[in-house]
Every structure is written in C-alpha cells, then in structure tokens.
C-alpha cells in the first residue's frame, strides 16, 4: 500500500504510484520533526521508566506487611489506556486551572504558570512525563519478577565471599536479571516507538505539530484524511528503523536468549 495512491474516501481511484508517497512524506517538514521527536520520546521515556522502575522493583523486593496492596497501588497505571492517561494528564497540565501549575507555584518552584501543553518548548517534556508515569509500572513488574527468581543461596554464597551490598548487586543480581533487562528494554522501545495513544489523548500532536512522533504523525494521516498510502509509507519507514535498531541492539548485547522472559 505504501506504493499506491490509497485514500479511504476515494477507493475507486487506488493505483500504483511508485515511490511518490515516500517522496511526499520525506519532503514534509512535519515528518523530520516527528522523526527527531521520536528519538527524544523513546530515549527519555525509556531512560526514566527503566531507572525508576528498577529502583521501585529493588525497593519492593523484600517481604513486608502490606506489600501486595502497595504493589497494586504502584503498578496500576499499567491497567489504564494510553488515551485516558492522556486525558487525565491533559486536565492536570491545564495552563489555567491545572493542578500541576498550582502545585509548582505553591512549592515556590515557578513564579508564573507554564503552558505545559500549549507552549511548544514545554509540550514534548509534558508528554514524556505522562509516558514515564505510565511505563514505570511495566519495568517494575517485569524486573520484580526477575529479582524474585534470583536464588537466595547465590546471595548467601556471595556474602560468605565477603561481597558488600554493592558488589552483590553488580555481580549477582545484575547478571542474573540481564536477560529480562534486554528483552524488556527491547520490547519497550518498540512499543514506545509505535504507540501514539498517549500523545493522541494529550496533545494530538499539537501545538503546531510540535509533539508529533512518527506513529502519531502516521495516525494523523489516517484519521484526518484517510490517506493510507502516505501512512503506509511512514509505517514502512518505521519498520525499517525498528529492524535496524533490533539488529543493532541484539548484536551489541550478544543476546541469543531474547524471548525468554
């Protein structure tokens, strides 16, 4: 379809057009913006999701009273849809009566309201915050599961050999959970890269296209105009990027065990 003139509202006129869709897309300045945004979006989302998720998993990796309830309360964003998360944060980021501005002003961090979603300098930051909030739970769940499967006798043996807390983490825990880390980060990058729902709910790419990533740009082509030809061209470009990334990532980490959770 990427090579066809394919518009949903003009289906009698579907025809082969060669690389024209690719040309059109690549010439669109919005596309370059979306490509750059995608990189920011994936990198910062993943970085903070992983870091905070790992910290949370480590904190929860001990039996204590009320852990089950606490886990549920900390992990629940994973059960929400990206679209609703977008709506919830849209309300909180509201520049006039949004609660985020109010809290920051009360805490004395800022003096005047920030247009988190209406100011192009802030909008990308805001959607990433919402995405991080959403994704911490995924890493925390997966990493907690991996941590709990580390046999405790490994720690005992390490302690007898005189390992302190830090070396125990870097020499026992880390290698043991490495396959999970590799698989989850790989999958997560792909999902973050592909999933436009949070952006769709929060800003729908605005203001002025400043928060479009490739997938929301593609979605925009479909929803506003039903231009499946161009959308497919974007899709093909995305798949190529993901394939290159996957090959690079797998050879860099030398992992053959991906797919084993």
């Amino acid at each position, binding site marked *: *379809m990427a090579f066809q003139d*394919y518009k949903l509202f003009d*289906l009698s006129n579907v025809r082969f057009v060669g690389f024209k869709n690719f040309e059109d897309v690549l010439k669109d300045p919005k596309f370059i913006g979306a490509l750059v945004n995608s990189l920011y979006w994936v990198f910062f989302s993943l970085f903070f999701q992983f870091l*905070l998720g790992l*910290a*949370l998993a480590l*904190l929860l990796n001990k039996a204590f009273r009320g852990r*089950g*309830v*606490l*886990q*549920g*309360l*900390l*992990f*629940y*964003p994973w*059960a*929400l*849809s990206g*679209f*609703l*998360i977008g*709506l*919830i944060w849209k*309300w*909180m980021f509201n520049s006039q*009566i949004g*609660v985020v501005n*109010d809290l920051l002003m009360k805490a004395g961090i800022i003096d005047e309201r920030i247009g988190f979603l209406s100011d192009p300098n802030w909008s990308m930051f805001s959607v990433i915050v919402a995405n991080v*909030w959403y994704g911490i739970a995924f890493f925390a*769940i*997966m990493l*907690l*599961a*991996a941590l*709990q*499967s580390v046999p405790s006798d490994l720690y005992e043996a390490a302690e007898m050999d005189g390992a302190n807390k830090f070396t125990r983490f870097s020499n026992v825990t880390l290698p043991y959970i490495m396959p*999970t880390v590799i698989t989850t980060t790989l*999958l997560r990058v*792909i*999902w973050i890269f*592909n*999933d*436009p*729902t949070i952006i*769709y*709910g929060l800003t729908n790419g605005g203001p002025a296209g400043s928060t479009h990533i490739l997938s929301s740009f*593609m979605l925009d082509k*479909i929803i506003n105009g039903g231009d499946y030809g161009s*959308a*497919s061209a974007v*899709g093909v470009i*995305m798949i190529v990027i*993901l*394939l290159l990334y*996957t090959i690079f990532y797998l050879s860099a980490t030398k992992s053959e065990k991906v*797919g*084993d*959770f």
Partner: protein
Amino acid sequence: MRLSILGIGKKISLLLYLVFMIFPLYWIVVTSLKPQDEIFSYPIKYWPVHLTFQNYVSIFKISKFHIYIANSLLIATLSALIVLAISLLGAYVLARFQFRGHKQVLISFFLTQMLPGFISLAPLYLLMSHLHLINTRVSLIVMYTVSLIPFSTIILRGFFQRIPVSLEEAATIDGCTRFSALWRIIIPVMLPGIGSTFIFAFIQNWNELFTAVMFVDDESLKTLPVAMNSFVMKFDIDWGAMSAGTVLSVFPTVFLFILAQKFIVQGLTQGAEKG
C-alpha cells in the same frame, strides 16, 4: 544508626513514589465529584467541598453510557475467553512438541509485536466490509482475539514449560489421554498463569481505541473508549462529565489489576525461571 537513616530514606522515597503514582487517579476522582463551578474556580480546592454525583448522573443522561459499558464488558470478556482457548492449545503444542517450523512460528509471533497495529486497519476495514461485519460487535471480537493470540501464546508457553513433563506422564500411566491429562492435571496447576493471561487480555480489549473507532460508529455498538473519544470532540470543556466518564472506564481495570497483580508477578517469575 546509619542503617536506620537508610531505612527512613527508603520509606520517604517510596512515599514520594506513591504520591506521584496515585495523585493523577485521586485528582480525576476528586474532579468528578465536584460541582461544575468548583471545578473551574480558583484557588484550586484539593478536595471536593460540596460533594456531588451530578457529573455521574449527567453522563448517563447525555449519553448511552450504560450501553457503552455493556458493549465493552461483552466484547472484552468474550474475546479474552476465545484468546485463552486458542492460545492455551497453541502454547501447549509449542511447549511440548518439536516440529519443523517450530522456531519460525515463535519468531513470527515476535514480529507481530513490532508492527504498529493501526497500519493494517485499512485492508482489514475492506475485508470486514466485504464480510458485512462493519458496525458489528463480532468484528471487534474477531480483531481483538487475533491481535492478542501471539503474545498470550508466548506467555502461556512459558507457564507450560515450567510444569514437569513427568506430571503428564504419570497421568497418562494412570489412564488419562493426552487431552484429559491436559484438562485435569496441567490446567489446574496453571490457573494463576491462566488467570493473569486472561486479565491481561481483558484489559487490552477494554482499553483498545483505534480499531473500535474505525469499525464501529453506531451509537448502540460503541465501546467505552470510542464513546470517550467522541466526548472529547463534543464536550471538550465539560471536564466534570469527562472525569466522571474516565473514572467509570478506569475503575474496572484498576480493580482487576490490583486483584491480580500478585499472580501476575508470580506468574512472570515462574515464566522467568524456565530453562
């Protein structure tokens, strides 16, 4: 002394996390319980001063919200059940048998995770309209089922591999057929895994937006996300009704998730330990 400071630091950071994680949910609930004028008044009130359910009443009045809920429940449950039935059998075969193309099947399952789902919506739309399934609940059930089978199968395969083959062999010796061994012995042992897969599938179906937007636009067939989506366009300013709708769409999944998360972590642990 040093240890206790560390302990306090841990507690404080956990507390901060907790606030960060829970506040958005708290805030949307509080908003939904405020009267219209209080929602937009300044300074912001951090709890509802005049508690009211008018937003909930009005959302059922201005839309067919009960029908959306019923549609979502029906579609999400049915599809999750079908996914389980198919993935269980598929995962069993992938876990227990070696055959030509075994690896290719697994790889193709992983590849399906790489494609943005909505890229295939246009051809599927054509297919569905040829089958006269546009604007039916069946179309969504079929779509959701198909899209969830690969991931569910991979997860369930992990659970199967955790269960020793000897358990089945013992059952066979006692006179079970392969299928009755699966049904009577293996599946009961796997219940936590099956439960968490079901809840995973249910939550995905409950939340799905774009397929439903494409395939259904009849008022009486809309699912919750579709309805919320058209709310945004219609009543962008009515945050009271919006937040009431959000709370109603969010709570079933949050409730299910909190109920099941212990099993999910447990289940994933078991999946992770397989050789």
